[in-house]
């Protein structure tokens, strides 16, 4: 019922470019996630969607009607959207019932009908008994449900969720995650979900939009994002990636060079078995990435930084920096890869739902 088209959306705060020409097409009934580290532009996108600010360029259209553009935007209250805030934003001066009923009051729904709908909605989220209480008397999980009930009772066509689970403890988070997914399936409402937690994104989404530095890095189904990261950033961000440095020594059409091909095959054999039988060999993703890399991301991360940040405990033996790396020979590279593969296999076995992703970055002698 609600298809969102975001075209060339941009937003600056002073000199800081928060969002840079974002294109995103969100189909109806989808659960899509905006994923990225803090400051990547995901929250800005959500707030633009909600109408809390106006874009500097581009536009947002829902079902063909333009809601936001630099020329003007429909105020939040007329967008027919709901939103769940990170801190729940429950009104402390109203009871749980009044919080949930607020949207209906604004729509001038007759009192009797409003009462019935609020009661129904509190039942759906499992809060029958607490309607008369103050929100501050509820637990974090209960507050979360009130926030959900409040945003759903007006029957929005789109629900925006801003890191709604980040304030809950791990166990509750797991449960609410399932409930959210279930709710989305049952209602068919388009969910736009903002998070910085990859596992949350992978578990919930129909599609994930990975963002960084105000730019969209990749947009696709979780599996695709996971198995075929479009670039080094996505690979790294999607779960403690295993980035293997290799050197292209020879490039021939249809077949990887010595360093590249060897790495790809090795990792594919190590990481894939037993979990994703239907997945294409990781080497394919790696090769694709190697092909896209130079044109797509001109200012890439430096390998040294990446290695220093990596938490995987892979032995760093044989790692060269600077000029040394440029001169790395095939033999050395292969030894290095073998040494890493050991660590990788162990780790992959430990983290079952977070399979190791491999990307092979193509480093060229300069």
């Amino acid at each position, binding site marked *: 019922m609600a298809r969102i088209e975001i075209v060339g959306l941009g937003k600056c705060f002073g000199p800081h470019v928060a969002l840079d020409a974002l294109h995103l097409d969100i189909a109806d009934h989808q659960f899509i996630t905006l994923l990225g580290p803090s400051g990547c532009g995901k929250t800005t996108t959500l707030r633009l969607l909600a109408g809390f600010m106006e874009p500097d360029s581009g536009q947002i259209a829902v079902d063909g009607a333009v809601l936001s553009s630099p*020329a003007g935007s429909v105020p939040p209250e007329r967008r*027919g959207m709901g939103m769940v*805030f*990170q*801190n729940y934003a429950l*009104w402390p001066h109203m009871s749980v019932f009044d919080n949930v009923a607020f949207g209906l009051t604004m729509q001038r729904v007759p009192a009797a009908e409003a009462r019935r709908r609020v009661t129904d*909605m509190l039942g759906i989220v499992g809060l029958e008994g607490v309607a008369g209480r103050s929100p501050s008397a509820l637990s974090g999980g209960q507050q979360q449900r009130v926030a959900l009930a409040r*945003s759903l009772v007006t029957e929005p066509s789109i629900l925006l969720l801003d890191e709604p689970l980040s304030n809950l403890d791990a166990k509750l988070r797991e449960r609410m995650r399932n409930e959210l997914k279930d709710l989305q399936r049952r209602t068919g409402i388009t969910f736009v979900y903002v998070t910085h937690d990859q596992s949350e994104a992978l578990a919930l989404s129909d599609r994930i939009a990975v963002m960084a530095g105000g730019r969209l890095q990749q947009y696709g189904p979780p599996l695709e994002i996971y198995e075929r990261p479009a670039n080094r950033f996505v690979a790294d961000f999607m779960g403690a990636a295993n980035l293997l440095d290799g050197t292209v020594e020879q490039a021939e059409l249809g077949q990887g060079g010595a360093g590249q091909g060897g790495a790809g095959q090795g990792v594919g054999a190590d990481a894939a078995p037993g979990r994703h039988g239907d997945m294409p060999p990781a080497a394919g993703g790696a090769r694709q990435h190697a092909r896209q890399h130079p044109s797509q991301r001109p200012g890439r991360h430096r390998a040294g930084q990446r290695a220093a940040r990596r938490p995987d405990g892979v032995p760093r033996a044989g790692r060269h920096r600077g000029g040394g790396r440029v001169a790395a020979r095939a033999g050395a590279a292969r030894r290095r890869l073998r040494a890493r593969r050991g660590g990788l296999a162990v780790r992959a076995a430990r983290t079952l739902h977070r399979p190791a992703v491999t990307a092979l970055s193509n480093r060229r002698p300069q």
Partner: protein
Amino acid sequence: MSASLAAPGTATSTAMPRRGGTLAPRLALGAGVAALLLFVGYPLLWLVLGAFGLPRGFGLDGFARSFTRAANVAPLVNTVVLAVSVGLASVVVAVPLAFAVARTDVALRRVVHGLVGLAYVLPPYLTSVAYIILLGPNAGHINRALAWLGLDFGLNIFTGSGVVFVITLHVFAIPYFLTCEALQSVDGSMEESARMLGAGRWGVVRRVTLPLVAPAITGGALLAAVNSLALFGPQAILGLPAQIVYLPTRIFGAVSSYPPRYPEASAMSLALVALTVAGLAAQRLYLGRRSYVTVGGKGVRPARWRLGPWRWPVGGLLMVPVLLAAVAPVTVLTLAAFSKVWTKAPTLDNLTLAHFQAALLDNQIAVRGLVNSLELAVAAATLAVLIGLAVAYLDLRTRLRGRVMLDYLAILPLGLPGTVMAVALLQAFIHPPVVLYGTIWILLVAYVARAIPMGARSANAALRQVDASLEEAARITGASWTAALRRVLLPILRPSLLLGWLLVFIPSLSELSTTILLYSSGTETISVAIYRLNDMGQLEVVAALSVVLIGIILVALLLMQALAGRSRTAVVASAAGG
């Protein structure tokens, strides 16, 4: 699954794009800004123009006269001496008091703390009148008691040191509260580690604690000094009879002479502003440069010293300054109000209610003053809080350009002593395009202008406590900007705004230094009534009026106490809920 959920609304698809901001917020905010420019910006402009002789001519005559005439130089010197003496004296009183209350288990510490607060809200001109009754030459209670004992020190409150004494009793509360707060927020582990390294109790105080709270002490002393500059009441009531003139009383003289010497008054006002701003800038600089005190309360709370057998003796000693500053003035004024003759002992046949009848029914100036003051204080507090709210909203909730300027404009009146504000308003509103002089409106403008910093500050603090997401949640749930304001933001802010309202109401109710230059026949206030009746020597009626004024202030204080408790719970609730 309810059927209704399966059919999401479709209102969105028909909505057309329009400007994000609607008219209502712009109008409301615009009104606040316009008020600020009219009440603060426009009069200030006239103060500067007036110093150059405008609108009658243009020249530096005003400056020349105000800084070369001997009659003007003495007040300047007196004022500086007054400020420095008050600054030093208030530190001497405040710091030991603050240390004992904040860090020891001394007896009566809560009583002392509360009485310092009362001393600060008591209008200093009432304290002055009370000390005429206590320390007037010959007739004062204390002088007569001493004479009866055969001791004659010839104590006289109508002297320079008398003015310093009374003003210090009022303003020492500022360094006291700042030092108390600093002492309580010092991380106890800093002191504990000094103890572990072998420093003695006093060594820790001298080498660790005092240096840590030094910025608060210095800042408090500077604020006390700046405050003393502006206190027209004691300077006039105690200084003028002895012909000791300070800048505010000199400016008062220049404006109330015939014809009024506006250029001279304006130039002297600018000098007074320069002194004030220098003091405030020094305080800001000092606090900014060395702020060691950890705020946030994450550290260890320092343990209180156990005084043992000294708890009560030290407690008694602490009571001395607050007895002098709060208890004694209120007591003697109350006794005088109920006495037929204030110099006689309060016996049964000296008892009367006649002064209250005079103050509340018969004396036209007193009656008008009471009514006018109540009306003005209510209106000024309401307007100041609303304007403050608009300024705070612009600052915290929008990215509008120029909002920083607005912020500055809103705290500007802090640098303007009441007398200066009056000179500015006089010149701004005595001639077209806006003529308010001679009406009660000029007093309202004055009170609002003076109260805007407090209004803006309390509104800002209140708004900071409320996360913007609470309003955004209302918007996305279907509320317009005005509905979100009316149904979500204002109800949440209500307790804090009421608290801010009372903070403005109390000083507005008893305002003297601006009023004395701006009132006219028919627009007297309670402060003017007290001032003029005191001039006429009707001390008993003055005392009765004072008791009424103190009564209203006490009720407002009790309300504030209750509200402070409520607003704290509201803040906790909003923090937990959002």
